[in-house]
């Protein structure tokens, strides 16, 4: 009865086309990209087209005390958009306008439903770029990216989403709108609410407008791969590159299992006997790029690396193909792919890779590890089958052990995917009891009725 009334009010506010309630519609929003998650159906799916719609939806939800699950493209890997407690799934994709590209202040202002790649294409016309580039850059929305604080391949040099979000409009849990931040580089008014909302996974407010920082597109780039007979050689090369004052835009690693899987999949002629491949890209002014590339080659070779440099864009694509194929190739091995993002300080990468290998052996699992070596963000990827309960129990144990290792090495549970449902139970390991209590206090302060994406990050 309550649900029927809720739906009726939503229809009055949004029109019936924007309010979907049939079983088939609800089933389509009962999942996201995360494997091994509970499936939960919302009571209703709504498609707001502007900020006033969002305000109205949150206000109505408040009156009926039902949860609101804000969703962009649903490509997250933390179970972040699954409507655990039913209620309203609010799809932001129709709010997809780029409102302004300000070439004087170097900012873009957009609605949350804009796809990251579309924003980059639009600002590219002005010789500018928005650097954060998660793997889902062609599908993920700016809103989702803000909510998850996504990272990507360019994190080492350019940082992640939180370094680029300057201002936000947010609909608070009470249905009221607040604006924070803006176009100024400097802003110390009050608490840094922008940073608080970025990465909050939609648990503290609903973002309806985003001001982000842009940078000039680098003029030149140079890409290389280096093959190493040992993980330690590759790790020393990573440390050596940074030590020689070169910060590559991309510094990626693939371990032996990944190399062999990619080679089986694509037949690129990869050295399947080698222990690690680094993919390195430096960018910037042409003269600087030349010098940096020389330094990279020198360091890699000094550490036993076999280096290939791309002569042109076509060769560059060839070199990057292997890294791009890492996840697809591993995914082809079996139906379920558990992709983690435990992250450690850069100098712990070799130790972490060894630890992952030991864990894989202990639990008898196939784990390919690749990721962003430059920023310590690794993607141990377990290939398994959700329907195999016995194997899944070993997978869960292995995941526990991976997180335990990451935190022990001074790292974090999640470099870029977020906590969501998937990593909630590990949160105390990283924050301690007092820390988790502090997170809960923040949640209670901004969302006292526990309406916004309840059941994610912390459960109150």
């Amino acid at each position: 009865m309550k649900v029927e009334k809720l739906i009726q009010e939503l229809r009055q506010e949004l029109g019936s086309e924007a309010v979907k309630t049939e079983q088939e519609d609800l089933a389509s929003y009962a999942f996201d990209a995360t494997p091994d998650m509970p499936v939960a159906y919302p009571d209703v799916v709504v498609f707001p087209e502007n900020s006033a719609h969002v305000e109205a939806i949150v206000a109505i939800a408040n009156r009926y005390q039902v949860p609101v699950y804000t969703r962009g493209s649903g490509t997250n890997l933390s179970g972040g958009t699954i409507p655990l407690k039913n209620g309203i799934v609010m799809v932001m994709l129709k709010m997809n306008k780029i409102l302004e590209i300000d070439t004087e202040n170097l900012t873009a202002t957009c609605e949350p439903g804009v796809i990251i790649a579309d924003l980059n294409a639009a600002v590219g016309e002005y010789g500018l770029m928005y650097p954060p580039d998660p793997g889902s850059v062609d599908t993920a929305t700016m809103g989702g990216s803000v909510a998850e604080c996504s990272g990507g391949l360019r994190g080492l040099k350019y940082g992640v989403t939180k370094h680029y979000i300057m201002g936000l409009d947010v609909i608070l849990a009470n249905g009221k709108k607040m604006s924070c931040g803006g176009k100024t580089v400097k802003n110390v008014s009050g608490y840094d609410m922008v940073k608080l909302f970025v990465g909050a996974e939609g648990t503290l407010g609903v973002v309806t407008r985003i001001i982000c920082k842009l940078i000039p597109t680098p003029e030149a780039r140079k890409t290389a791969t280096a093959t190493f007979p040992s993980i330690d050689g590759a790790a020393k090369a990573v440390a050596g590159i940074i030590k020689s004052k070169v910060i590559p835009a991309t510094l990626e690693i693939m371990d032996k299992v990944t190399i062999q899987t990619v080679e089986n999949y694509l037949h690129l002629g990869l050295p399947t006997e080698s222990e690690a491949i680094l993919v390195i890209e430096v960018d910037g002014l042409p003269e600087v790029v030349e010098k940096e590339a020389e330094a990279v080659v020198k360091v890699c070779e000094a550490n036993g690396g076999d280096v290939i440099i791309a002569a042109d864009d076509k060769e560059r694509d060839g070199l990057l193909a292997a890294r791009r194929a890492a996840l697809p190739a591993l995914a082809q091995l079996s139906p379920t792919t558990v992709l983690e993002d435990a992250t450690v300080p850069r100098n712990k990468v070799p130790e972490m890779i060894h630890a992952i290998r030991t864990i894989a052996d202990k639990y008898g699992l196939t784990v390919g590890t690749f990721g962003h070596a430059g920023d310590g963000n690794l993607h141990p990827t377990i290939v398994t089958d959700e329907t195999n309960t016995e194997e899944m129990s070993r997978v869960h144990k292995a995941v526990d052990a991976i997180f335990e290792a990451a935190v022990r090495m001074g790292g974090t549970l999640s470099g870029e995917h977020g906590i969501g449902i998937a990593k909630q139970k590990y949160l105390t390991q990283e924050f301690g009891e007092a820390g988790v209590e502090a997170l809960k206090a923040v949640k209670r302060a901004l969302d006292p009725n526990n309406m916004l994406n309840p059941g994610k990050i912390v459960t109150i």
Partner: protein
Amino acid sequence: MSEQTLMKELEAEIAKCMKCGNCQAVCPIYKEDMAEWSVARGKIKLARDLLTGKLEYTDRMEQIFSLCLTCQACAENCPCGVRPDKIILATRAVMVAKKGLPAVKRAAFNLLEHPGSFRWGMRVGSKLQGVGLRKVNDSGLVKPRFPIGLDMRRVVRPLAAKSLLSQVPEVTTVDNPRGRVVFFTGCMLNYIYTDAGQAVIDVLAANNIEVVTPKAQHCCGIPVIMNGDMETARKIARYNIDVLSGYECDAVVTHCGTGIDAWVHHYPELLADDAAYAEQARVLSAKAYDLSQYLVDVAGFRPPKKAVDTTVTYHDPCHMVRGVGVSAQPREIIRSIPGVVFQEMKKPDRCCGSAGSFSLTHYNLSSKIRDRKIRDILSVGPDRVLTSCGACRMQIEEGLYQAGDNVPVQHVAELLASAYEKEETADKGNQRDYQQTATERVAG
């Protein structure tokens, strides 16, 4: 294949999906409505729920599963190698097996089961269509006078006065033939774009290939498959296989994305469990080529000597580029013609939104997808648009008309044929008039 087998096949394919959502980046329908049920991963989730019995074969489910162009863009972009088009077609088929077909479709497909009645119907249609359709421009596009199953805004190319099969000889012979092919015309070239059909024969003959155009050939049956009526589809497949098996040939040549996909993939799959037909379906599958593919990869072709001064762009039909992997060959032919300036459009392989009967049942959505294609076409300023599929052609013709443009659309074969024809006019007398010869021979 039984419903059971279909379900089994479905299960394995569904299990491969890791729900990453990469399909969202390329699905033309999702780009328009941005709803999770429109895109492959949403449909795969629903198919999974159907299999486990969590959801049922409802009208809403049928509506959702009708939202697919089978353009295969998702399959191409899938990191796990899932074929969502197969899952969707199989689900449609199971749905039909469970729920039956709507009466209108049932009646239409009943007619398709009988080649003779179908041919008669199309003949009558071409005579009577003037009643319901009126001309909108000099190129002969027409529009409904009153609702006759077409959206009132719709503009189409009408049926030709005479079908191709009624005009051309069954065998077009040439001197010193280098090969002999069977030409499977498909309905679009037989009933609507007969000039394109004639051009296929001309081009092959100009390359000293003997062309057999069986009078008894029938609709490829793809519209029936797309709508999930697998039983009728199998009947049509067997019929066409019987017809074509009656001729000795090196190859089966089509000039239609849908037709080629039928022979290469659908027939062998439909008849995989049919002891009497499986083998022959496979044999013909291996021999089936698009005209451009046959000319470039198999027979080799003679680049024309005379220039055709024109600026063209090429639209890749989905079932041609992703269905059978033909995209380089038509371009090679186009570029071989002197005088032709080839301007590649942005995303030439993005679906035009036609998808055959989809454009009838989902006109609004289909038009939105089409208009993106039209913008891409017009941005390169061609003075003609080329493609290899009649359904795409009609869709693009309408889109250009609705955009207030009158750039003509042709099949690749027509451009090549017109280049060869120029040679003939240039040195008439020296060159053999193969068509004439052929007709005389058949008559004799």
